[in-house]
């Protein structure tokens, strides 16, 4: 999986676009990179998952860790573009309920 920082949107969220397979091989390095990016202060982050075609439990675990970190640091994470099998996995894991989704432009979806 690759991820790209595409800057800030109109709502002040730093947007990270993910593409490829969010799996047992890519999830650990992604978690470390984003945790480091968020640091310890309040932060506004938007993860664009529109080009993630495969998500496994390690990817789900990565998202859970980021949600937990955001809660502890007072940061905000929103998500956009979740579809297909990754969306189904998040539903079956009950994790989608915890994820605030917005549209690509940043508004509530």
């Amino acid at each position, binding site marked *: 999986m690759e991820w790209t920082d595409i800057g800030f949107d109109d709502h002040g969220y730093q947007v990270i676009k993910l593409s490829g397979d969010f799996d047992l091989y890519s999830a650990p390095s992604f978690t470390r990179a984003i945790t480091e990016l968020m640091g310890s202060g309040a932060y506004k982050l938007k993860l664009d998952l529109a080009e993630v075609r495969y998500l496994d439990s390690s990817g789900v675990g990565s998202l859970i860790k980021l949600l937990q970190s955001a809660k502890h640091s007072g940061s905000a994470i929103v998500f956009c573009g979740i579809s297909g099998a990754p969306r189904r*996995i998040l539903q*079956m894991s009950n994790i989608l309920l915890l994820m605030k989704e917005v549209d690509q432009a940043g508004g509530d979806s």
Partner: protein
Amino acid sequence: MIPLIVRQLIVDERNELFDAQGMKYAEFPSEYSKVREYTAKVLAECPAAFLEGGLLEQQLSELIKNGIKHGNRCEPSKALKVWYDLRKRARFIVEDEGNGFTNLDEWNDFYRRRQTALSENDFDAFLSLASYRGPNSAEDDGGNSLVAALEYWNGGIIYNDTHNKVGVVRWFSSGSTKLSGK
């Protein structure tokens, strides 16, 4: 209020899901870097209707990953055994050479607490319980694969007495109809 749904991992050595008669068989060395490669090999001739956009690959890879990582401790000399039957439904038996999922009862208790928090809209508690952490969990473990597995394997997910062998089945309403004449 979200309805309280609590499923369970079940131990039943004599369950019909462990009957491997007529099933195909594959055996792999426990190389963690090849989890998805092994999964692809098992599913090479899978009917397209069963794949569901990658869901079947994802769920089977979790079983193979658990066997290789937690069961066989990624020791290539230890075998990961897979029996599979992709006629009419997707059925698998996955066995490793490890000590078994020793925390199965604890996991069921964790899952009950997780689902209870969810049903009570206690999202703070739910978030703290979102990933299972047992004595053998690693930092990189997702800790949630069995939650989705309990829903996905709609015909059952059963462990043997020593908890190192799991049998699962998923039925497909449309796929089963399409294949019923074969």
